[in-house]
């Protein structure tokens, strides 16, 4: 081994603590990058494979009832590869040990399942016998949440008949990766079941023999889905079709997509920031660390080493440190990535998992880290190499200080000589001080970025559940009812208030921009479920026109006063042009509202309702739930209290996995930066401190020079970090929005405080270490060794 390489290895061993701190900063950046991309890629690949292996449909449509014979016509549509015809139905369930009524989505299973779309992955048991109306398969999440096993029974209200159903199998389905009940915002596994029942048996119960009410289609490769849907809609119109839709509007897929989009958003924003910040930090740290090698560089030059050899020597050192960091980062990133992927997979109920990451992710993370480290080293080496060796080997000439600002402050404030020294240092090397400040500020900015998701979600929950939808529960009817149905809801035990609503599936169109969503009709005196303006103040509905939320307005490129085309997807399927009379705030889903009367006018029908938002007396909850379980008109019930807690736990759990990891990495980076800054500062001042000690200053007094400087740096870095965190956070929240939910940009004061506390804690620990070093400083050797 070359002697110079041996020196490199020994240097590495000597500065191991600092090298490790630098390596950890690099590892933090690289790990975030690898982890985020790995988790995203793995989940994406798993989803694609799951859809493919279990033949998830491409196009879906629901109708009131169509005869089987129509099926042949649909199969003949150009571009259709396979078409399945089935029966879907909602039912209220009564499950043992579950006080609240549950909702079930019943799905028919044909006799022959080969070639079938949306296939089940049986976890236990078997499929129901084709002629048994009491045998069902349920989704795994529901079974687990209610501790149900094969052989257990529960009751369901199907077409007014109370049936007892026996579980014969437990399954997963690509159609219900995200199983969400009507009226719910997030999965509530205890209260929502997917129930698969033999087709013949289900048809018998619902009087749908020889007919179907839902279609699932897989397209031929290259088929145009728009064209297929158009033809399909035309075929199904006379059977009460509500408009075909693609995966994009399929509930489970849309939610899963939103989750993945969010992961992707975090991947696009957070890891690059982490990587770049860590790159900047190592650049800064290494520039200064190698600047301290000035004399050795001078000596190597003096004894005849060329600039290239010297530069290579330090590049090797830096690459060794970076390499350690990258390896730690890759291992950490891959390991955390798999962990996070597993947690998500469990949450999504995937039957299997595919781990995948792009080689390019590793390449980018490695290259950026190495490049910035090498650039930092080169800059430092080049600075020294520019000096003649005779000069480089001398301790640097005493820098020129100005009396400057520090003295002015001194004149007014009783500052000690030590404080003045610190201030002058910083004033003398403003760039160096600025870079340290920026480094620490960036680290705390990362922390804020990682932490703020919690704040934003909490603020979203607050608005969505305590300001907009304040009802205790929402009951839904299987078909729109006339106003009398509301009276019967009001008469249910404990109901204090019932506000009717009407939801109508529509397509909103502005030129070529189209969105499928529901218009909610609301009464003028709404008080439970409300509408908020941009300042989050409740507002009423105009007697005419359509009110949409900001997301819809963005998607359709419309603003207040514009006209949009409404295509109703049920009943008479009217098409009208409606004015957008207002734009309001909503964080969940895509919302459009109209007054109940205005909506009835639009639909060209009498006042009808789809359900009611209710407030009830909590003391009578049990009686109310029991009554609902046997009320034929009610097909579903969403419980707000459950929704809030489920929402918190679901969305947060989702973000938590990622954010916890990000926070941990940000903490590591923050510590690495502060520790290195303090250590380098100590080296830069070692001679001065030794001189002061020789002059009779105590350790406390000389430590104060360093600590004062660190304190001043922190004092500037902390608020700057808040600003940077605010900026990064804004970027992140922009990327976070999806059709399913938007996250308001909120940063709590506590978050700023937490980020700053971490940085300050890092500073305190570093200060203690530096203090110990000051204690151990060998005065004579420091002075003799000429820096």
């Amino acid at each position, binding site marked *: 081994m070359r002697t110079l390489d041996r020196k490199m290895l*020994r240097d590495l061993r000597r500065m191991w603590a600092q090298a490790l701190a630098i390596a950890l900063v690099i590892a933090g950046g690289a790990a975030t990058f690898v982890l985020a991309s790995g988790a995203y890629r793995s989940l994406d690949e798993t989803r694609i494979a799951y859809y493919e292996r279990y033949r998830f449909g491409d196009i879906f449509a629901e109708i009131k009832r169509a005869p089987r014979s129509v099926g042949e016509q649909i199969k003949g549509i150009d571009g259709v590869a396979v078409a399945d015809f089935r029966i879907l139905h909602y039912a209220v369930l009564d499950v043992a040990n579950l006080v609240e009524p549950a909702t079930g989505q019943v799905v028919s299973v044909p006799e022959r399942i080969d070639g079938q779309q949306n296939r089940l992955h049986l976890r236990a048991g078997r499929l129901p016998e084709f002629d048994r109306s009491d045998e069902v398969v349920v989704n795994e999440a529901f079974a687990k949440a209610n501790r149900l096993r094969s052989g257990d029974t529960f009751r369901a209200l199907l077409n007014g008949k109370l049936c007892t159903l026996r579980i014969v199998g437990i399954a997963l389905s690509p159609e219900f990766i995200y199983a969400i009940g009507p009226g719910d915002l997030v999965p509530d596994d205890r209260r929502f079941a997917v129930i698969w029942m033999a087709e013949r048996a289900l048809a018998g119960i619902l009087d749908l023999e020889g007919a179907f009410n839902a279609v699932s289609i897989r397209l031929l490769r290259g088929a145009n889905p728009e064209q297929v849907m158009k033809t399909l809609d035309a075929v199904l119109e006379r059977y009460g079709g509500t408009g075909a839709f693609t995966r994009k509007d399929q509930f489970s897929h849309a939610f899963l997509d939103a989750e993945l989009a969010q992961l992707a958003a975090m991947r696009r924003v957070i890891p690059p920031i982490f990587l770049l910040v860590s790159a900047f930090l190592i650049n800064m740290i290494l520039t200064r660390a190698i600047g301290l090698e000035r004399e050795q560089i001078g000596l190597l030059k003096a004894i005849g080493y*060329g600039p290239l050899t010297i530069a290579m020597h330090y590049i090797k050192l830096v690459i060794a440190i970076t390499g350690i960091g990258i390896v730690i980062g890759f291992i950490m990133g891959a390991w955390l990535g798999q962990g996070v992927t597993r947690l998500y997979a469990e949450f999504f109920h995937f039957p299997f998992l595919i781990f995948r990451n792009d080689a390019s992710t590793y390449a980018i993370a490695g290259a950026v880290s190495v490049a910035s480290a090498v650039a930092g080293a080169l800059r430092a080496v080049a600075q020294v190499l520019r000096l003649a060796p*005779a000069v480089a*080997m001398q301790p640097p000439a005493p820098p020129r200080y100005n009396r400057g600002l520090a003295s002015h402050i001194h004149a007014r404030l009783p500052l000690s000589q030590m404080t003045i020294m610190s201030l002058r240092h910083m004033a003398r090397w403003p760039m160096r001080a600025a870079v340290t400040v920026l480094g620490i500020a960036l680290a705390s900015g990362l922390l804020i970025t990682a932490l703020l998701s919690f704040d934003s979600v909490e603020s979203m929950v607050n608005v969505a559940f305590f300001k907009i939808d304040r009802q205790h529960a929402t009951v839904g009817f299987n078909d729109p009812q006339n106003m009398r149905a509301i009276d019967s809801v009001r008469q249910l035990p404990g109901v204090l208030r019932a506000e009717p609503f009407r939801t109508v599936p529509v397509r909103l169109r502005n030129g070529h921009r189209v969105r499928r969503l529901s218009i909610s009709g609301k009464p003028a005196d709404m008080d439970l479920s409300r509408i908020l303006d941009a300042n989050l103040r409740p507002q009423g509905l105009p007697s005419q026109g359509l009110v949409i939320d900001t997301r819809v307005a963005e998607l359709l490129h419309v603003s207040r006063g514009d006209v949009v085309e409404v295509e109703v997807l049920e009943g008479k399927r009217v098409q009208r042009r409606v004015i957008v009379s207002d734009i309001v705030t909503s964080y969940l889903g895509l919302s459009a509202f109209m007054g109940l009367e205005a909506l009835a006018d639009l639909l060209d029908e009498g006042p009808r309702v789809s359900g009611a938002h209710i407030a009830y007396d909590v003391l009578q909850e049990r009686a109310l739930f029991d009554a609902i379980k046997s009320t034929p008109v009610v097909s579903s019930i969403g419980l707000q209290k459950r929704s809030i807690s489920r929402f918190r736990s679901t969305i947060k759990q989702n973000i938590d996995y990622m954010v916890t990891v990000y926070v941990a990495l940000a903490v590591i980076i923050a510590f690495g930066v502060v520790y290195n800054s303090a250590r380098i500062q100590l080296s830069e001042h070692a001679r001065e401190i030794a001189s002061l000690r020789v002059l009779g200053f105590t350790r406390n007094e000389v430590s104060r020079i360093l600590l004062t400087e660190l304190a001043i740096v922190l004092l500037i870095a902390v608020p700057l970090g808040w600003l940077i965190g605010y900026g990064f956070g804004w970027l992140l929240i922009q990327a976070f929005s999806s059709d399913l939910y938007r996250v308001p940009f909120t940063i709590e004061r506590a978050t700023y405080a937490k980020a700053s506390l971490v940085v300050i804690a890092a500073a305190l620990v570093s200060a203690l270490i530096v203090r110990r070093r000051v204690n151990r400083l060998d005065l004579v050797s420091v002075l003799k060794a000429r820096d």
Partner: protein
Amino acid sequence: MGNDLRMSDLVFEVRGLTKVYRSGEVEVRALAGVDLTLQPGELVVMLGPSGSGKSTLLNILGGLDHATAGTVRFREHDLTALDDAGLTAYRRNHVGFVFQFYNLIPALTARENVALVTEIARAPMTPEAALDIVGLGARMDHFPSQLSGGEQQRVAIARAIAKRPDVLLCDEPTGALDSKTGVRVLEALMRINKELATTTALITHNAAIREIAHRTFYFGDGRITSVEINKARKAPSEISW
């Protein structure tokens, strides 16, 4: 050592050498027109107070610093015309340095500090041989921190001579040492000068050392004030301070 040597036999030929340092607003004239020649195998001592320009001259002779004006010829090369790469090659192939503060690499052992040079030299002796010459054969695997000041300086000398340099430039080699240790260091330098015929220039504050030299240059205010030829050289052990 007569004056009848031809020009090309000179090791160094310095004419009108001037060096001005600019440090902020202050301009320091370290050398103000120095002329001198050094001959092969010669051992010269440079004496003078601090700031008289000795170190600056040595640095320029060794290619560690650039002159402001004047010329320095090493054999047939004009050092003042060389660029950075040229100076590096010059230092690597021809010059050995000994510094007052040894300037050893603390992370390397004695042997490795010498090897640092032998690895890039053209026809070096082995590090072991170089350390033997300075009497440190037994302590080769010690780190600088495990060696006394005199030992460290002898390692520095071994490092300087291992490449068999044409010139050996020593800046206060005994400045940080007690007299007994200093004598051992000087003995090592003289032995090398004699055995390898290395032209040696030695800066010192210590006037007693001039007695081991062929010639002594006296410095003052950036100039050579006088030159003294030593007719009867003494051995280091015969001098004292």
